[in-house]
């Protein structure tokens, strides 16, 4: 079964890979410098490494590391769940940091036997989780002071974004929001509970219109209509591939919802909104402002 996701992954994986293949001499050489050689598996971890100022030590990232743009120019080890042991070892890493998503398990075991320090950091959809990850990364990278400074900054930004949410939520009825992930026509999925999208909606003082469902599910037109969302939330990437808000609202069922009739579609960049990285406070402010704008007044 070759799905569109495979093809996408393939095209993004092959493009940077063919060049070193053509000139075998171009393969990464084992460096003997005293610096760390870090491979980051997980977009949020990559963002944190940049925030901690350790980007010079980065020698490889996974395919979810799309921000900052500079990270996309580093050697790409593929999607976090389909890593390859030899490919990782070819980067001669002294440290691999990964989220719990990383796999497959056999490859992790192969890395273990190769004695590469692999650190799997806990992933969750909580602000406190980001603080933990930042502290842990600070220890691993030998940058504890930078980590403390970053944590302080994040906590300050978080407090501000929380105030914004409280202010917005006080003035309005909480909007019912349906998150639609649509990266290919007819493959749209909607987010139930225990997803990053659900956690963001709760933080933003909104209600996930899709209740009683766990994880991401294929978009069922009738379920979307029954959910009766006031707003449809999407990712900018998904919106682009659907042909904008008009294209997204052409998906079966969405036009018949209150959000569809009023054309209320909000979109944020995927990793900013769902990555639970250092951009979380700013993402929350943006999200809450966009969701509450134009919501019906309670009073």
């Amino acid at each position, binding site marked *: 079964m070759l799905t569109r996701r495979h093809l996408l992954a393939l095209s993004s994986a092959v493009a940077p890979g063919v060049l070193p293949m053509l000139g075998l001499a171009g393969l990464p050489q084992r460096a003997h410098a005293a610096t760390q050689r870090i491979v980051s598996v997980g977009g949020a971890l990559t963002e944190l490494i940049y925030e901690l100022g350790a980007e010079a030590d980065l020698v490889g990232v996974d395919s979810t590391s799309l921000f900052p743009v500079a990270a996309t120019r580093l050697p790409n080890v593929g999607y976090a769940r*389909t890593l390859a042991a030899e490919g990782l070892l070819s980067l001669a890493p002294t440290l691999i940091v990964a989220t719990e998503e990383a796999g497959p398990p056999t490859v992790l075991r192969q890395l273990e036997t190769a004695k590469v320090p692999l650190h799997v950091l806990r992933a969750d959809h909580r602000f406190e989780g980001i603080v933990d990850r930042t502290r842990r990364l600070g220890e691993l990278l030998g940058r504890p002071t930078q980590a403390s400074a970053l944590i302080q900054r994040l906590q300050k930004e978080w407090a501000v974004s929380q105030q914004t949410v409280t202010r917005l939520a006080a003035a309005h009825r909480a909007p019912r929001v349906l998150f639609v992930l649509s990266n290919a026509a007819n493959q749209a999925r909607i987010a139930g509970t225990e997803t990053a999208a659900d956690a963001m909606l709760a933080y933003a003082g909104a209600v996930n219109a899709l209740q009683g469902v766990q994880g991401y599910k294929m978009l069922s037109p009738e379920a979307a209509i029954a959910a009766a969302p006031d707003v449809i939330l999407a990712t900018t990437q998904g919106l682009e591939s659907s042909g904008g808000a008009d294209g997204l609202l052409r998906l079966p069922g969405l036009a018949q919802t209150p959000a569809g009739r009023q054309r209320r579609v909000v979109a944020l960049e995927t990793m900013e909104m769902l990555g639970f990285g250092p951009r979380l406070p700013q993402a929350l402010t943006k999200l809450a402002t966009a969701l509450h704008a134009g919501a019906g007044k309670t009073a």
Partner: protein
Amino acid sequence: MALIAAVLVVVQFGAVPIALSDWLNGPWSEAPKSGGAHVLWQLRLPRILLTVAVGASLGLAGAISQALFRNPMAEPSLLGVTSGAAAAVALTLTLFAGLHLALPPTARLWLLPVVGFVGALGVCVVLQRLSRWLAPGSIAALLLCGLALQAMTFAIVGLCSFLANDEQLRAINFWTLGSLAGANWTMAVIMLTALLLLGSLAWRLAGRLNALALGEAAAAHVGIDVDRLRRHSVLVVALLSALAVAWCGSIGFIGLMAPHLARQLVGADVRRMLPCAMLAGALLLLVADTLARTLAVPAEIPVGVFSALIGAPWFLVLLRGAVRRMGSA
């Protein structure tokens, strides 16, 4: 010879460059392992041996099925064997995950291969019973039952991928596209031993499979117990493909291409074709896996992508030949 040469060539390709000293720094040596030596001895060599064994198994299984069905389009997956393993694995991944059983790590590593093997064998048992119930002794009935079982097992995989979360979906994809990335020495040694045993079994079937080429009735006339031969052949095919699938997922088209290459090289005599098909299968899979390992460095592409990219056009060319022969007959 060609195989040894090919192994020596492809072992040089990979993400990590291998130096001559790495070859000498094997498991027997006390010297500290350089990165290259570790990759060569712990990752690449077992992987290449496993690739050879799996490719040879698929080629052999394909050659036996083609002789058995007297149909050059036959291959083990047509019997539903490969998808039977995939369905069992998919069910395990999605349903058992819901039970939250705490298994020790070693059990986890063996659980899926064992489940896949049981799934493949299970399909074979059902296949035997079904085809006997439907039309005893008929090879056409066996093939049609295989197709029906394949459709059913695919449906189970489909249902599981619908129920699966992202992590489980990835694991199911891994199984449906195939990968040799998990190779280690244990797997390689078990697979090579099994190939040796099953290969000698297949060898003893070869003469009778030759007689079968004349037709079921003619074979029965010269004193061959067709039912028995069929049972044994299907068992060998099932064991070979179940073992191959258990660790590496389903890798398509090798079982189809290898026997064809063999027939073109040494003719249709099964006794000469079987070893040749094994060799061809091993070489084809080596090429496919080397592409999978090296094209996207430092990432890796599922090997099933390449076997299908090479194999599917091949299948169409074969089909065109078959259709033309039918037209002129």
